[in-house]
C-alpha cells in the first residue's frame, strides 16, 4: 500500500504551509524517517520525515502553498505501484507550480530599477543548496553559468578553496593603498577569535598587578621518566607529553597551596576547591578557526591520573582543530600553563599574561642541555626555563616562591608525583 506525505498540523492555529524543498527526486528510494520535504509556515522551516520506506512520488512542486492535511507526495511500495500512481496523477510531477505563493518575494518595479548598480547575484537552486550546506559566502563566488549565474561547480570550487585557506585574508584588489604614508599589504578585520584574544589580553593587563619571576629547573629525572613513559605508550593508551606531566605536577602543587588557585572577584578573593588547569594551545592556520589560541581546561586535574590527563587534553585539542569545541571545554580554568618553547621560542623566558580571572600562569620553555655547576664542577644537564606570572593583588612573593619551589621539587624528583 502506498503511504501519503501530507502537510502536518504544527500548531492549533496553523492552516497552511509552503513547500520549500524536496530532498529527493521523483522515483528515488527513501527510507522511513528520512527528511523528505522542507515546508515553511510562520517564517519557520520544518522538516517532514518519510512516514514509510519506498519510492517517492512528488505530487506538489515547491513554492506552492497547501492547506494542512493536503497530500503533497506519495511513497510507493514497489516500482509497479509507483507507475500506477504516476499514471493516475498524470505523469511525474512537472516543475511548473504556481509562482511563489509568497507575493512578498516578487520584486517590485521600483526595486528592480534601484538595482542598477552592476550585476545582480543569481544562483541555481542546486548551487544554493550546496552553498547553504557549506556556509559559503556568495560574495566570494564568481558565477560562471549563463549570464553570470552561480552554478554548482562554482560553489564546489569555493568549498575547495575554503578548505585550502579558511579565513584567508579577503581577496582584495592589489591597489597600493596607503595609511599615514605607509603602504598597506593587507587588512585583517579584528573579529572572532582574534578579537577575543585582543580584548582578553588587554583587559588582563589593565586589571591585574602582574609580575613574572623566572628561573630554570633541572629535568634529568623527568626526562628519564618521560622516556620510560613513552615506552609504555601501549599500556597507557596514550603518548604522554611533558605538558601532561606539568599539568599533573601543577595540580598537585595547587592542592597544597590554595592561595595560588584563586580569583579576585569584586573585592573578594575566592579560593577554588576545584583545580582546573588550562593549557594554552596554538591552532594552526589551516583549520576553520583560522589559527589563534585556545585554552582547553582539564577539570579536577588533581583527581586524575597522568594517562587520564593526557587523553583528555588530546581529545579537546583535536576537537579544537576540527572546530568542534564546546564552551565547557575551554571554560572554568583556575590556573593556566603555557608552553613558551614552541615554534621559534627555543630555550627562553617570557612574561605570560594571566588568563582572567585566574591569578597565575606558568610559562615553560624548551628543555635544552646547558652547562651548570654541580658540586663545584661544570657539568651538562637538561634544563627547562620557566616564567611564572602572578597577580600581586592576590599573591605575594612568598607564596609565589613556595609554589615554584614545590613544583620544582616535584619535577626534579618525579617519583614524588606518585605520592
Amino acid at each position: 500500500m502506498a503511504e501519503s506525505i501530507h502537510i502536518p498540523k504544527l500548531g492549533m492555529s496553523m492552516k497552511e504551509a509552503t513547500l520549500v524543498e524536496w530532498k529527493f527526486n521523483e522515483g528515488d528510494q527513501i527510507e522511513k524517517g528520512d527528511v523528505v520535504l522542507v515546508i515553511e509556515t510562520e517564517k519557520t522551516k520544518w522538516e517532514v520525515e518519510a512516514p514509510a520506506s519506498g519510492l517517492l512520488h512528488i505530487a506538489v512542486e515547491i513554492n506552492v502553498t497547501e492547506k494542512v492535511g493536503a497530500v503533497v507526495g506519495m511513497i510507493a511500495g514497489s516500482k509497479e505501484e509507483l507507475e500506477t500512481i504516476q499514471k493516475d496523477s498524470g505523469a511525474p510531477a512537472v516543475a511548473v507550480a504556481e509562482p511563489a505563493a509568497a507575493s512578498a518575494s516578487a520584486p517590485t518595479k521600483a526595486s528592480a530599477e534601484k538595482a542598477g548598480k552592476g550585476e545582480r547575484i543569481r544562483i541555481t537552486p542546486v548551487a544554493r543548496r550546496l552553498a547553504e550546506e557549506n556556509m559559503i559566502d556568495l560574495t566570494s563566488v564568481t558565477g560562471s553559468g549563463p549570464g553570470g549565474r552561480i552554478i554548482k561547480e562554482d560553489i564546489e570550487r569555493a568549498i575547495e578553496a575554503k578548505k585550502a585557506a579558511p579565513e584567508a585574508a579577503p581577496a582584495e584588489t592589489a591597489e597600493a593603498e596607503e595609511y599615514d604614508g605607509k603602504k598597506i599589504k593587507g587588512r585583517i578585520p579584528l573579529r572572532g577569535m582574534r578579537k577575543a584574544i585582543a580584548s582578553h589580553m588587554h583587559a588582563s593587563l589593565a586589571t591585574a598587578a602582574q609580575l613574572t619571576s623566572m628561573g630554570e629547573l633541572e629535568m634529568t629525572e623527568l626526562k628519564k621518566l618521560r622516556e620510560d613513559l613513552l615506552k609504555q605508550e601501549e599500556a597507557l593508551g596514550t603518548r604522554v607529553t611533558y605538558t601532561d606531566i606539568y599539568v599533573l605536577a601543577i595540580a598537585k602543587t595547587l592542592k597544597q597551596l590554595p592561595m595560588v588557585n584563586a580569583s579576585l572577584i569584586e573585592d573578594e578573593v575566592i579560593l577554588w576547591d576545584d583545580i582546573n588547569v588550562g593549557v594554552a594551545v596554538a591552532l594552526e592556520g589551516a583549520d576553520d578557526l583560522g589559527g589563534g589560541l585556545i585554552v582547553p581546561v582539564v577539570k579536577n586535574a588533581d583527581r586524575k591520573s597522568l594517562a587520564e590527563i593526557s587523553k583528555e587534553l588530546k581529545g579537546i585539542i583535536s576537537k579544537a582543530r576540527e572546530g568542534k569545541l564546546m564552551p565547557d571545554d575551554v571554560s572554568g580554568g583556575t590556573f593556566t600553563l603555557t608552553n613558551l618553547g614552541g615554534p621559534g621560542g627555543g630555550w627562553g623566558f617570557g612574561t605570560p599574561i594571566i588568563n582572567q580571572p585566574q591569578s597565575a600562569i606558568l610559562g615553560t620553555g624548551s628543555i635544552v642541555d646547558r652547562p651548570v655547576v654541580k658540586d663545584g664542577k661544570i657539568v651538562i644537564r637538561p634544563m627547562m626555563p620557566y616564567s611564572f606570572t602572578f597577580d600581586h593583588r592576590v599573591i605575594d612573593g612568598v607564596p609565589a616562591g613556595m609554589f615554584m619551589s614545590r613544583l620544582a621539587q616535584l619535577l626534579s624528583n618525579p617519583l614524588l608525583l606518585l605520592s
Partner: protein
Amino acid sequence: MPVLKVYKMGLADYGRAYKFQEELLLQRIGREIPDSLLLLEHPPTLTIGKEGDLENLLVSGNELKKRGIALFPVDRGGSITWHGPGQLVGYPILDLRERDRDIRKFIDALEEVIIRTLADLSIQSTRDDEHVGVWVGQEKIAAIGVRINRWVTKHGFALNVNNDLSHFSLINPCGITDRGVTSIVKLLGRDVSMETVTEKLLINFSDVFEYELDIAARSTDDLL
C-alpha cells in the same frame, strides 16, 4: 522551572555561530543539554532563506564585497535579512517537545519577549497579522526566522538596537517593499547599550517562556 542555558557570544562570525547552533541542536535533540539561547552580534552579513530572495538584493556582489558584507544562503524560514554590529541576534535552541508542539505559539512568544523588552525601554511595538516580526508603526524593529528539526528550534530573532540602518537599503528586508526599518536608538534619540537591552531581553525571555536562567559565566568568547 526548566533551565535555559544562555551563551553570550559577543561578535561572532555567521558561519561559526551557525556551527555552534548545529552542535547544540543535535545535543538538544538527544536530550543531552537543556534548552539554550545564544545571544550575539554578527559582522555585516546578509542571509537569504530561499533562492527567490536574491530578487530582493538590490546591489551587485561586487558592491557587497566592497562594503565588506558577506552573503549566506541559510536554512531558516523567511526571506532576505541583514545582520551586523549593533543588532542583537538571538538563537533559541528550544525543545518544543517539552512545550506545546505549536509553531505559532513559539513565534508568538518570541514576539512577546521583544515587545515586552521594547516596552521596558518605553517603546510601544506591535505584531502584524500578515508579517511575522515586531513593528513600530510601519517600520520593522525585529525580524524573525526559524528552523525546526524534530521539534527543536534553531535560528531566531534579530533586534535592531543601535545598528547602521543604511545597510537595509541594499535589500527589501524580508521581501517587503513598502515598509521601512527602525532601531531602538533611532526611536529614542539617545544611546542605549547592548548590555542594557540584553539584560532586559533575558528577563523577559525567562518570564515569557518560564525559565530559570543559567548564564554561562564564561562563554565561547573565551576561546582565547
